[in-house]
């Protein structure tokens, strides 16, 4: 996804004079031609993440559409007050594009992992959050975000991707399969494992590559058609991140929610992201056991 991000952003910088890209070293080597073509709109501030987001806020104050990029841990968590104040409180927008996601940099350890990024943004007002599950989806969502006025958008890129892209509409969940025993909401890179885990089971599978705003209407429609409000949410970040949104969507009906995501306890292991997915119980085997037990299927 990061390769696609670089290629599409480079193209967009050529065609849209309102766009500016702010970097803090990470991925800068992928933007060398763009920086040469647009020295005033491709800005690398060095290893200065407070300035990365602060400068994005300043660019937006002058009317530009900034895209700021680095690893999720250094884009959302480290300069969180800049995200809160230099964008939100100023009333300006930006597109924050992260790499690394929850566990991509498994061998890098906790310092390079940000499973709490979406939960952190959930404490703020007005953020659109996209979690693409495929490079094609990332491209669609990036193009939409770049052209989406002065909105505040977080685009969460990952090495972890599904084998095939889904058609995505920003802000909408998509029904991939219908059943009667429960509804499983798969977020972004979780889709392949969810489809494998629920294969042969009588469940509805909803897909979300775009999670904020939370598409309550599609969730309600899916539970109504399934005739059940037993819901499983499978997210590639901190367990329970979307539970409050689901509870709000289903507030007027009795419902049960099983939240599956990365575990809160720090996983003090290195290795590969695939090993971390399995350790969090987010591979097909781990998901199947917990989904079956919860839905009784």
């Amino acid at each position, binding site marked *: 996804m990061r390769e696609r991000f670089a290629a599409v952003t480079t193209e967009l910088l050529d065609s849209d004079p309102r766009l500016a890209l702010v970097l803090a070293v990470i991925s800068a080597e992928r933007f060398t031609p763009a920086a040469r073509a647009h020295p005033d709109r491709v800005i690398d501030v060095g290893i200065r993440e407070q300035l990365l987001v602060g400068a994005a806020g300043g*660019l937006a104050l*002058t009317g530009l559409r900034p895209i700021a990029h680095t690893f999720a841990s250094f884009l959302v968590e480290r300069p969180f007050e800049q995200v809160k104040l*230099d964008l939100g409180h100023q009333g300006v927008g930006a597109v924050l594009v992260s790499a690394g996601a929850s566990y991509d940099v498994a061998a890098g350890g906790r310092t390079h992992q940000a499973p709490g990024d979406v939960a952190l943004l959930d404490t703020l007002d007005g953020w659109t959050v996209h979690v693409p599950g495929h490079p094609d989806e990332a491209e669609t969502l990036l193009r939409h975000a770049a052209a989406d006025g002065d909105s505040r958008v977080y685009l969460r890129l990952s090495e972890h991707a599904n084998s095939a892209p889904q058609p995505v509409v920003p802000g909408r969940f998509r029904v991939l399969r219908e059943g009667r025993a429960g509804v499983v909401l798969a977020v972004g890179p979780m889709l392949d494992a969810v489809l494998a885990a629920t294969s042969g089971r009588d469940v509805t599978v909803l897909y979300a590559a775009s999670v904020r705003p939370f598409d309550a209407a599609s969730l309600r429609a899916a539970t109504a058609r399934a005739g059940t409000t037993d819901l499983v949410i499978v997210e590639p970040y901190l367990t329970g991140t979307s539970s409050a949104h689901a509870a709000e969507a289903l507030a007027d009906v009795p419902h049960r929610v099983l939240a599956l995501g990365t575990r809160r306890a720090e996983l003090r292991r290195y290795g590969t992201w695939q090993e971390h997915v399995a350790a969090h119980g987010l591979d097909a085997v781990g998901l199947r056991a917990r989904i079956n037990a919860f839905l009784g299927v």
Partner: protein
Amino acid sequence: MTTTDTAAGASYAPGSAPGPYGYADLRQLMSRMTGDEKHGPASTSTLDVLWVLYDRVLRVAPDRVDDPARDRFLLSKGHGPMAYYAVLAAKGFVPDAWLPGFGGYDSPLGHHPDRTLVPGVEIGSGSLGHGLGLGVGSALGLRAQGLTDTDVWVLVGDAEMDEGSNHEAVQYAGAVGLEHLHVVAVDNASATYGWRGGLASRFAAEGWSAVTVDGRDHSALYEAFTAPHPGRPHAVVARVEPRES
């Protein structure tokens, strides 16, 4: 008062046009705000700096607060904004009738300013160390849009410079020679551990043009604010009486 000599700002005179009040009225305007005793001394430390900027330097006007070519003044040190509000009222950006409501539920004038509530206020501030990053981005954004005659001014305090975010911005702006970025650092000796060698040395070491002047001397402030600094950002350290005196 002379008009500026470059195309983009040709229709502005340096300094905001005369407003309803002058310098002699500022303390009376400030006295109409109450309820912020804690920040009283800090609010007056900025008074002369703000007045000279608004009266003689900034190319801004109450009827052009959205003009892309206007100069940008970013009050980074959002604490004690009474002097700021008084100057904005004196220059006609906000009605003086707003002043007595300072800090009240229905007032747009809070103990820390909100840009979305107050005409002419460029940033919301209060948490220290945010104005310089926003100022760097503003200067970059103006340059990218060809607004090469527009200046950005950021007012910080000497204690505010304790925040590390400022140093990210100072180093970067110096390294890339962000000529249209200006800082005025009001130094009332309130930084907990001081600035050995003087605050100006921190800017100079990063390639800025930097001067230190008496923050109550209008002529000295004006001279420092308008000193040429080709190819470099410019810092003016304005010394005022120590906070505790």
